[in-house]
């Protein structure tokens, strides 16, 4: 049984034939499309290392069947930077030491991008921590991660105040 699906991945239209319906979005990205940024940590939706955006919303790629996402737009960590210019969240993670070993980092950054787009945290560190709780960091870089998210939130808020002025 093979299934033909179409996805837009990091802006590029991709047609994929799945030879097995068991393939998750994470396995499709990593094993078939050579996009190994999203990581397989627990593979059970508990660690968040596989976080990607689907139609602009952060989800766990390990718990989504690729076949079910036919027609969706997917953004992975590989799709964030523009050439050598880092996405503001990527730059903020570096500036605030938001990682140590780096394994959870692509998921952390994609989750942070999703969180900022959702717009429910404001500049409240408690809300940032709560809304990032789906991403586990075994090195314990949470302090830097929270600071990085808050910095980008603050920059966005300042930008929108300037726009309004």
């Amino acid at each position, binding site marked *: 049984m093979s299934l033909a699906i179409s996805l837009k991945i990091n802006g590029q239209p991709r047609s994929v034939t799945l030879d097995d319906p068991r393939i998750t979005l994470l396995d499709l990205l990593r094993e078939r499309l050579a996009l190994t940024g999203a990581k397989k940590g627990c593979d059970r939706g508990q660690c968040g290392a596989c976080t990607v955006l689907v139609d602009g919303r952060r989800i766990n790629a390990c718990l989504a069947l690729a076949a079910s996402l036919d027609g969706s737009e997917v953004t992975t960590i590989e799709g964030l930077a523009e050439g050598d210019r880092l996405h503001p969240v990527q730059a903020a993670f570096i500036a605030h030491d938001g990682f140590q070993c780096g394994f959870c980092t692509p998921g952390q950054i994609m989750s942070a991008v999703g969180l900022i787009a959702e717009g429910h945290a404001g500049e409240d560190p408690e809300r940032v921590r709560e809304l*990032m709780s*789906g991403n586990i960091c075994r090195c314990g870089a949470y302090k830097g991660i929270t600071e990085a998210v808050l910095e980008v939130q603050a920059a966005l808020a300042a930008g929108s105040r300037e726009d309004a002025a």
Partner: protein
Amino acid sequence: MNRFDYIRPASVGEAIAAGAQPGSAYLAAGTNLLDLMKGGAARPERVVDITRLPGLDRIEWLADGGVRIGALVRNSDLAYDGRFQRSFPAVAEALLSGASAQLRNAATLGGNLLQETRCPYFYDTASACNRRAPGAGCDALKGENRLHAVLGWSEHCIATHPSDLCVPLAALDAVVETEGPEGRREIALEALHRLPGTAPEQTTTLAPGELIAAVRLPAEAVAVARHARYLKVRERTSFAFAVVSAAAGLELDGGTIRRARIALGGVAAKPWRARAAEALLQGATASAEAFARAAEAALAEARPSGDNGFKIELARRVLARALSLALAGAPETPPALPASPFALAPGANHAA
């Protein structure tokens, strides 16, 4: 994961025809089903993807002030809907206290209702489990069972239902609309999940192929909107299932309780409506003493199923505090740490 046939029906009728065949499982977001399949606890022969079915993804406000929520509405979309938060604050808070942001973005209303227990013996295919393999026995009875049921359990199964959402839904008299091979029908949410008895594998009252189309919250439930809370004790502050939780709603006439709505979570194989406690509070003066008496009544039938006697006293205290929080008033927006006993909402008196 076992091999399966994947089909994506275009209509509810097609879906039901496929879903009613033995070995079929409905797939929405898959956040629970795929987890179960990866561990081998679920092995469907046919996965019926219902995510493209038309008309199931809407929040519709009814003329009388009630709401009809399509089964495919995502948890986060419901929880952050402004009118929904104002009308049903305890439901929004329960939703936001569950899982992680990523999971809430994917998980659906119908899937939340039909998720499986998180009993580790159910998930571990090397363990005996009557719910997964009828007649096999129950390894939880003599195992690690400090988080298991204290109400409504049997010697055949001591698992709990893990949903947060279902707890306030039960308290608010939610109604489940279904479509199945026999047509449409409505089931009180309270009657959707079964207690284990001698057949714990029968977890719901749905017939084979019967599909949840929507959940309705009645207009009368809005009457507690100003005084409704959900409180949940977890083993970590976020992204954890309830050890014990409580939904509490009060309709007040000055200092007198006109009507109370109460349900407990994490204590049984279904969300546990506490009607005896509600009856005690009806007409009573809202006070810490009245809330303590109601909590006693709510847990009157409770007994440990293992090393979990502490959950009975914990449930009394969680319920009494949820009632105090409800009396203090629902916050205008969900607190930073939804449903957490460590989240101080302005105006709420945690010492009460």
